[in-house]
């Protein structure tokens, strides 16, 4: 039996909704309609429990509270219950319009009745997660990841191409912080990771998926082996490369031109007598990061402290810590603005010609040493590692993350994380924080319940053209081509439905959200609206179930009203909306369609907001071409922090 339960929210809603009329209108749609005063309270929940049996399908018109579902989850299958948040989406936002609000409630409840007919039982996804974690690169970050995970009781293997000792760690990390800090930290980390397995190998192959990767290794002792692991953390290091202007400045040709790292070593060993005049040149074409700026300042300060005359020729030095800049000045470092255009090696020293175009000034310095600021770049084998693991790189060769704001340590492949400098040059604090973050993500992966329930995309092989659009669009590496067929790796899937919106044949359909169900719902919504409201224009808001939905709920809580002919239709993710649903909405007569997604960079499924914008733009182009007004469709973001958004977006035009 199809049953409808309505809640008056402790008799507060019956002033805004005409429950008796709603009941009358819906008599033909439901087998029974019951009105209760507080479904979410103990007595109400007991009432529900006594009223439903596992044969029923149930629609509940109440509030956004999740509590009401609880008693029924025992008795009813998920796919037999549909909720309509009458309070937030109707009563509270149309409080001055009893008739309109009641009409809208009828339309939405009819929609829920159809929706419940189209719901599938959720799929259970079992995650088999290997507990073993592989850490590639045992620098400071690698050690930090290992230390955190070991602390949490997780086995780790650290992979390094060659054996490392404490000095090597400090050396490799010297651009990140001063020596004392590093030495202390290394000491702590090394002792904290004593129980980790460390092997000297490089990765030669990778297969499998998150939770179950098989990694082939070639080891220093000539052996090849494989290791199984659930997650991989990449903590590869960086190296210091000569800047583009190095050749022009005689690097490699003259002993007087050296790199910043060489200066650091020299200064360290320098006796009190052998003071020198040093010019440090920053390449203006290299965009100096704050970490690199900090490193430069630390080295020149040390050099000046040892009695050397240090001149820094630069156009801009960035640093996150003003104190190091001050310390450099106080130690006597001379900063001059300008670009080093030319260097000439003479018996008196290196003659450096400095140009300051801003002040059209040319100066010459004769110095003992010309020191070049280096560029911090990923270690040489990073590109090969990325190729093997299928990760993407940015233009400087750093490994990119999938969605930097939301998941700063998640690479483009699930189950593979990046900690520290492999992503960009970082200060020691940032690097350690990112390593901690990566360790936490890995831990979450391992600890997440091994069973998830949800609606997933289903592929109909007969219909599929193997166009690979879905594979390209899936932000989670959950679709792959296996033996010429598109295969869904449900363990990777985040149930977003982005794959569905790009599929040209709709051979891939999301459970409970098939095209047929959308068509049936949209047609019925329009028809019922017309029945209740006649010619009054109406708008569909296709809202993602995350931010947009929260914003709309909040519009209700805060009473930011909007016109009654506005029907919010929930999508798991705005990226699931394809031109078909938009055009169908217009075709059934909606005056406007608003696709509401999370704010840019805030999509819970990574690319849904972007996809929604693309789809809407594309649909607008289609509309323009066929002589329709493209302004009838709009994509916009909504977030809980902006409960006004709904009001602003759906005010009727004209």
């Amino acid at each position, binding site marked *: 039996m199809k049953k409808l339960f309505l809640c008056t929210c402790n008799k507060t809603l019956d002033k805004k909704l005409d429950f008796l009329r709603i009941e009358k209108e819906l008599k033909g749609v439901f087998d029974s309609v019951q009105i209760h005063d507080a479904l979410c309270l103990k007595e109400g929940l007991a009432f529900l429990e006594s009223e439903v049996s596992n044969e029923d399908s149930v629609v509940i018109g109440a509030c956004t509270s999740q509590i009401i579902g609880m008693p029924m989850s025992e008795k009813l299958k998920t796919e037999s219950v549909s909720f309509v948040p009458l309070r937030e989406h109707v009563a509270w936002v149309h409080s001055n319009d009893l008739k309109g609000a009641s009409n809208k409630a009828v339309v939405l409840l009819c929609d829920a009745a159809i929706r419940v007919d189209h719901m599938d039982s959720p799929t259970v996804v079992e995650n088999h997660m290997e507990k073993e974690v592989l850490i590639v690169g045992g620098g400071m970050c690698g050690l930090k990841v290992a230390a955190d995970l070991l602390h949490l009781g997780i086995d780790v293997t650290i992979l390094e191409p060659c054996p490392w000792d404490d000095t090597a760690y400090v050396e490799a990390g010297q651009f990140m912080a001063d020596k004392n800090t590093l030495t202390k930290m290394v000491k702590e980390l090394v002792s904290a990771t004593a129980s980790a397995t460390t092997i000297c190998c490089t990765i030669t192959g990778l297969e499998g998926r998150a939770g179950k990767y098989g990694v082939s290794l070639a080891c220093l002792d000539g052996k090849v082996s494989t290791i199984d692991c659930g997650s991989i953390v990449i903590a590869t290091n960086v190296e210091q490369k000569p800047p583009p202007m190095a050749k022009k400045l005689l690097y490699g040709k003259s002993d007087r031109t050296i790199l910043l790292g060489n200066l650091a070593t020299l200064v360290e060993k320098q006796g009190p007598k052998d003071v020198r005049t040093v010019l440090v040149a920053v390449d203006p074409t290299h965009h100096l990061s704050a970490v690199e700026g900090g490193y430069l300042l630390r080295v020149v300060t040390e050099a000046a402290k040892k009695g050397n005359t240090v001149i820094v020729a630069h156009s801009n030095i960035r640093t996150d810590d003003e104190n190091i800049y001050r310390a450099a000045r106080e130690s006597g470092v001379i900063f001059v603005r300008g670009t080093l255009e030319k260097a000439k090696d003479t018996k008196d020293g290196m003659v450096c010609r400095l140009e300051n175009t801003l002040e059209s000034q040319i100066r010459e310095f004769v110095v003992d040493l010309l020191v070049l600021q280096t560029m911090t770049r990923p270690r040489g084998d990073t590109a090969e590692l990325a190729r093997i693991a299928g990760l993407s790189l940015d233009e400087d060769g750093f490994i990119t993350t999938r969605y930097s704001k939301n998941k700063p340590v998640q690479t483009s492949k699930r189950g593979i994380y990046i900690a520290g400098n492999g992503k960009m040059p970082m200060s020691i604090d940032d690097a350690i924080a990112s390593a901690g973050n990566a360790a936490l993500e890995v831990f979450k992966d391992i600890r997440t319940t091994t069973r998830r329930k949800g609606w997933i995309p289903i592929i109909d092989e007969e219909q599929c053209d193997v166009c690979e659009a879905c594979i390209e669009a899936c932000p989670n590496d959950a679709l792959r081509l296996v033996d010429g067929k598109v295969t869904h790796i449900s363990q990777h899937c985040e149930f977003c439905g982005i794959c569905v919106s790009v599929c040209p044949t709709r051979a891939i359909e999301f459970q409970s959200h098939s095209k047929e169900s959308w068509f049936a719902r949209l047609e019925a919504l329009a028809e019922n609206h017309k029945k209740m409201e006649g010619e009054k224009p109406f708008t569909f808001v296709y809202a993602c179930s995350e931010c947009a939905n929260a914003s709309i709920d909040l519009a209700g809580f805060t009473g930011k009203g909007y016109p009654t002919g506005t029907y919010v239709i929930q999508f798991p993710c705005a990226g699931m909306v394809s031109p078909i649903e938009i055009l169908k909405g217009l*075709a059934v007569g909606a005056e406007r369609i608003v696709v509401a997604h999370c704010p840019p960079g805030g999509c819970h499924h990574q690319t849904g907001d972007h996809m929604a914008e693309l789809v809407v733009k594309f649909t607008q182009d289609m509309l323009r*071409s*066929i002589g*329709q007004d493209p302004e009838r469709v709009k994509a916009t973001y909504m977030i809980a922090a902006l409960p006004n958004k709904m009001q602003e977006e759906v005010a009727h035009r004209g």
Partner: protein
Amino acid sequence: MDKRDQLIQKLRNIAVKTPENDVEVPEKVEGFGTIEYGAQTCSACKKCILACEPAALDMDPTMNLPDYLKATIPHDGFRSKNRESLVTLLQGLREEGNVVAISVPDGLPGYGSIAWAADRCIACDKCIEACLEDCLTLEKTYKLPEIIGEVKPPPSITVSKDWEPFILCFVCWECSHAAADLAGLMHLHYPTNIRTIRIPCLGAVEPMHIMTALENGVDGVLLTGCLLSECHYGGDSPKAGNFMQYDFVKFWMDVLEEIGMGGRIHIDSASAAMGIKFADIVKEFTEKIQNLGPSPIRGKLEVR
């Protein structure tokens, strides 16, 4: 350069006028045709592109909306019900005005149009077999204007009074060659303008041979073989060499007509016993060429 490129290059070389019409491809002629594409069902899956060996197909990042709007949905619908919905919706929402193709935004997979290059296609049907969505069909027309492009008329030539046509005659080494021999034995007179080339079967004459002859300034090309249904290599089979060649020659006659070289090829047959007929064929064709005058290509050749 592959063979097709060479042939097209030769056609461009011998063209003396800009072709204006597509040429109909006779039934038996294979290897020439037009791929017609309907975007409305295309899933941009690229299967056709992968199947096409001469790389005649490419993906164009546009959505060909005019195709969607003029499409008619067949009785049993499209294979892709999704495209069917899209077509129905777009047609339903259409308002007045001119529909244009739109570009597909970067990063949105699943849409695109196939671009077909007439001069690369060898009408092999492979793309059609590969396409699951029935977007492609082979039309028996040859898009000559597209392939040849614009042609500058060659410098005109002055016909000297003692000009005699120069004709190349391909004779099959079965009947026709015997007929030519017989004509000789019978001391029949036929014009001295022809040079015969013996080939195994008429079917062995390739367009490349004909075009090379014309390209080098030959005024006419004659092909003679066995009587129809008496081909030594196919008898009365519809695939017999001579039988096939009739359709090909018909095709090339039309092509040559379009590019200003009409009337300069002829196909005929004479059995071993037909010495007289052979002599007549030669006489008639020579007269025809005589009336047409020297090949206009000569103008081009002289310049070169």
